[in-house]
C-alpha cells in the first residue's frame, strides 16, 4: 500500500511538464470558480442588504389587507404600544413605524404625483439606511412640527359657519345675476377672515411648515433645492382634499429609480396629523439582530401578535420574492458555470491519465507480472490522479482565496460597464466578493469527484492489460 503510494508519487514526477500543465489547469479552474462564487455571494449579499437596508427592513407588519390594495384606512392601530411590544421580543434589533399617503407636490408651475412616506427619524436609522441616504441638505429633524390640536366647532360657531355659507351663496347669486353686467361683484368683506378663523380651529396649520425630504430625481423634476417651500395637495382619511405648505430640508438618493422619482419623506407624526390617522401606521419595519433568522423571527412574531387586531407579519423574502428569485437564479447560473469549467478540467485529467497509462503499458505489464494485482493497478492510477488533483486543488485554493481576499479588500470596479441595477436595487459600482464555506467546499469537492470519475476509465483499462501481451507489444 505504502509502496503503491510512493510509486504513484514518483510517476507524477516522471513527466513533469504534463503533470504541471494538467495541475495548472485544475488549479486555475478551482481558483477561478472560488473567486466567481465569492463575487456572486457578494452580489447576493448586496442585493439582500440593498433591499433590506434601503427601505424594506428584515420583517414588516401590516394590516392583512394593506399590501394588496394600499388603502389609506387599512392601518395598524395603536402603533406606539405595538412597536414597544415588538421591540421587547428577543432577536429584534429595532422597530420603526411608517405611514403612506398619496399627494400632488407642486412648486411654481410644476406638479408631480408623489408617494408620501411618514417615518420616525429616530428609529428609522436603526432599521434602514434611510437617514444616511441624504445627498443634499439634512434628514428630517427628530422632533415633529408643533401642530396645534384641532378643536370641534361649538354650536354657535357651527351656526356662524352656516350663516357664512348662506352669505357666500347669496353673494354668488348676486354674482351670477350680474355676470352680464361688467364688473364682478367683490366677495363680502369679512367672509374670508371669519372663514379663516373657523378653519384654523378645526384644521389648524402648523406654526412652521413641516419638513420634507425629496428623492433626488423628484427634486430635479420639480426644480427645488433644500430650503424651498412646496405645496402638498392631498386627500386625508376622511376624503377631504387639503393643501399644505411644506419645506424641503433635504434630498435623498436610494439608487432605486422609483423611490428617487416619487418619494417624499415626512415626519411620521406630521403625516399622521395631516391624514388624520393619529397613532396609526401602515407598516412596522423591523430589523432582526440576525438577518438569517428573519423567517423564523417573523413566524414567532406572528404568534406573539395574534389575539389583538388582525396583523400579518412577513420577512423580506416573502415581501420581495423577486429578489429571492433573482438570487436563486444567479446561483443556478453559477452552478452550471462551475459544472462546465470542471467538465473541461475533467477531460484534461482523462486525457493525461489515459496517455500516461498507454505510455506505461510495458511497465504496468511488468508490475503485474511481478505480482501486482489488477485492483492494485487500478488503485495505482487512481492514486496518481488523486495526488495530482490534491496538489493542484491546494494550489487552486490558495489562488482562489488570494483572489477573494483581493476582491474583498479592493473590489472589482465595474463603473466602466456603466451603472446598473437588478430588480430595482442599484448595484454598487465596486463589486466585493464574500467568502462563504460553500463557496470554497463546492468547487473542491466537485473537482475531486470529477477527477476520480475521469480517472476511472484509464485505471480500469490499465488493470485489464494482459502482462504477456503488454510486454511484447512495447
Amino acid at each position, binding site marked *: 500500500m505504502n509502496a503503491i503510494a510512493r510509486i504513484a508519487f514518483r510517476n507524477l514526477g516522471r513527466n513533469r511538464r504534463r503533470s504541471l500543465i494538467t495541475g495548472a489547469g485544475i488549479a486555475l479552474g478551482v481558483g477561478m470558480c472560488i473567486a466567481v462564487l465569492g463575487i456572486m455571494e457578494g452580489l447576493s449579499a448586496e442585493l439582500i442588504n440593498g433591499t433590506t437596508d434601503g427601505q424594506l427592513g428584515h420583517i414588516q407588519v401590516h394590516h392583512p389587507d394593506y399590501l394588496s390594495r394600499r388603502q389609506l*384606512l387599512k392601518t395598524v392601530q395603536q402603533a406606539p404600544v405595538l412597536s414597544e411590544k415588538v421591540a421587547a421580543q428577543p432577536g429584534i434589533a429595532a422597530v420603526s413605524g411608517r405611514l403612506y399617503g398619496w399627494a*400632488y407636490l*407642486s412648486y411654481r*408651475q*410644476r*406638479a408631480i*404625483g408623489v408617494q408620501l412616506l411618514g417615518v420616525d427619524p429616530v428609529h428609522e436609522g436603526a432599521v434602514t439606511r434611510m437617514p444616511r441616504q441624504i445627498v443634499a441638505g439634512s434628514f428630517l429633524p427628530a422632533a415633529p412640527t408643533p401642530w396645534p390640536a384641532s378643536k370641534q366647532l361649538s354650536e354657535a360657531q357651527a351656526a356662524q*359657519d*352656516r350663516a*357664512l*355659507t348662506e352669505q*357666500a*351663496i347669496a353673494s*354668488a*347669486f348676486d*354674482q*351670477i*345675476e350680474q*355676470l*352680464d353686467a361688467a364688473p*364682478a361683484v367683490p366677495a363680502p368683506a369679512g*367672509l*374670508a377672515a371669519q*372663514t*379663516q378663523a*373657523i*378653519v384654523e380651529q*378645526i*384644521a389648524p*396649520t402648523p406654526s412652521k411648515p413641516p419638513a420634507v425630504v425629496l428623492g433626488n430625481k423628484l427634486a430635479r423634476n420639480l426644480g427645488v433645492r433644500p430650503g424651498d417651500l412646496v*405645496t402638498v*395637495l392631498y*386627500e386625508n*382619511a*376622511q*376624503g*377631504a*382634499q*387639503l*393643501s*399644505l*405648505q411644506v419645506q424641503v430640508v433635504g434630498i435623498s438618493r436610494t439608487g432605486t429609480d422609483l423611490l428617487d422619482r416619487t418619494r417624499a419623506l415626512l415626519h411620521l407624526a406630521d403625516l399622521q396629523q395631516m391624514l388624520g390617522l393619529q397613532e396609526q401606521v401602515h407598516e412596522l419595519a423591523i430589523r432582526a439582530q440576525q438577518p438569517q433568522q428573519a423567517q423564523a423571527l417573523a413566524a414567532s412574531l406572528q404568534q406573539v401578535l395574534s389575539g389583538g387586531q388582525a396583523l400579518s407579519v412577513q420577512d423580506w423574502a416573502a415581501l420581495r420574492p423577486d429578489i429571492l428569485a433573482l438570487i436563486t437564479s444567479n446561483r443556478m447560473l453559477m452552478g452550471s458555470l462551475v459544472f462546465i469549467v470542471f467538465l473541461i478540467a475533467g477531460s484534461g485529467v482523462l486525457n493525461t491519465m489515459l496517455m500516461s497509462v498507454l505510455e506505461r503499458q510495458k511497465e504496468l505489464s511488468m508490475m503485474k507480472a511481478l505480482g501486482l494485482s489488477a485492483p492494485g493497478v487500478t488503485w495505482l492510477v487512481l492514486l496518481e490522479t488523486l495526488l495530482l488533483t490534491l496538489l493542484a486543488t491546494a494550489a487552486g485554493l490558495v489562488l482562489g482565496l488570494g483572489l477573494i481576499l483581493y476582491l474583498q479588500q479592493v473590489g472589482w470596479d465595474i463603473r466602466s460597464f456603466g451603472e446598473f441595477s437588478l430588480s430595482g436595487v442599484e448595484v454598487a459600482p465596486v463589486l466585493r466578493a464574500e467568502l462563504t464555506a460553500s463557496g470554497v467546499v463546492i468547487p473542491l469537492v466537485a473537482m475531486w469527484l470529477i477527477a476520480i470519475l475521469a480517472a476511472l476509465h484509464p485505471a480500469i483499462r490499465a488493470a485489464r492489460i494482459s502482462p504477456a501481451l503488454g510486454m511484447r507489444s512495447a
Partner: protein
Amino acid sequence: MLSPVFHLRRSRTVHPSPFRWKDSMATYRTLTVPLTLLLSLAAHASAADSLPLQQWIKQAETILRGDTSAAIMSMKIKKEAYQREYDLMVLTDDRAESSKVLIKMLGPALWRGNATVKVDDKISFYDPRNSRVTVMGSSMLGDNWMGSHFSNDDLMRETDLSRHYDYQLLQQQAGQEEGIGAVRHYTIKLSPKPTAPVAWGKVVYQLYLDGQQRAYPKQLDYFQRAEDAQAARTLSYSALKAMDGKTVPTRMTMLLPAKRGEFTEIEYRKLKFNVKVSAENFGERALQ
C-alpha cells in the same frame, strides 16, 4: 410659355370627340343605376332604424349647461367613512371645442373659497389658505372630485357621450313625467367606438322626449365592460323644475350598486343659461 400648354389641355376637355362622348355616357348610365338604388336603400334604412339618438343624447347631456351657464348647487356625499355637504358655484362655457368649467366652493368653512378650474386639458386647484394654485394634468380626470362619487371628468365634462359612441335603441314606450305630462321614454345603448378615449365598456342611457321633442335625461348606467350585467355606477336625474325659463331636472344622484347606502347627490338651487362669461372668469384671478 405656360399658357399655350394650358390652352391645349383645356381645348381637349371642352371639345371631346363625338365618339368619346357617347362612350362616357354609356359608362355613366351603367354606374348611375346601382348608385341611385343604393342611395335610396340607405335612406330607407336610416328612416326605419336610426332615430336621431345621438342628437337626443346631446340635447339631454347639455340640458343643464346651454352654451354657457352659471349655477349654484349643493352636493351631499354619503360614504361609509364619512358624510359631508358642500355648497358650490359652477360656471361653464361650452362655446369652444374644449369646454371651460369653474367650480367654486362656498361652504362649509374648511373648503370655502377652494376652486377647481378646467381649461383645455389642464385642471387647476386653488386653496385660499395658502393662496396657491396647483396645476394638474388631465390624468387627474378619472379621480374622484373632493371625496365624492363624481369624478373630475363627470363634473368637468371632458368626455362627451354624444360623441365617441355608437347608439342603439333598446326600448321605447309612452309614459308620464311630473311637471311635463305625457312623454315618450327611450332606452339607448351606447357602445364606445373602437378608438374612443372612454373609460366605460357600455353606457345605458334612459331619456324621454316631451311634446316639443325636447330630450331630458332620466338615468345613466355605466358598465365597466360591455358584457357586464351589473352597472358600476348609476346616475339618475329627477325633480323637474323651471329654472331660468326652462324646465330641467334639478337633482342628480350618483349611486354605486356595489356599495349599498353610499351616494352623492347634487341639487341645483339656481341656474342661469347663456350668461356672459369670458376667459377671465376661468383665469387665475377669478380663483382668488
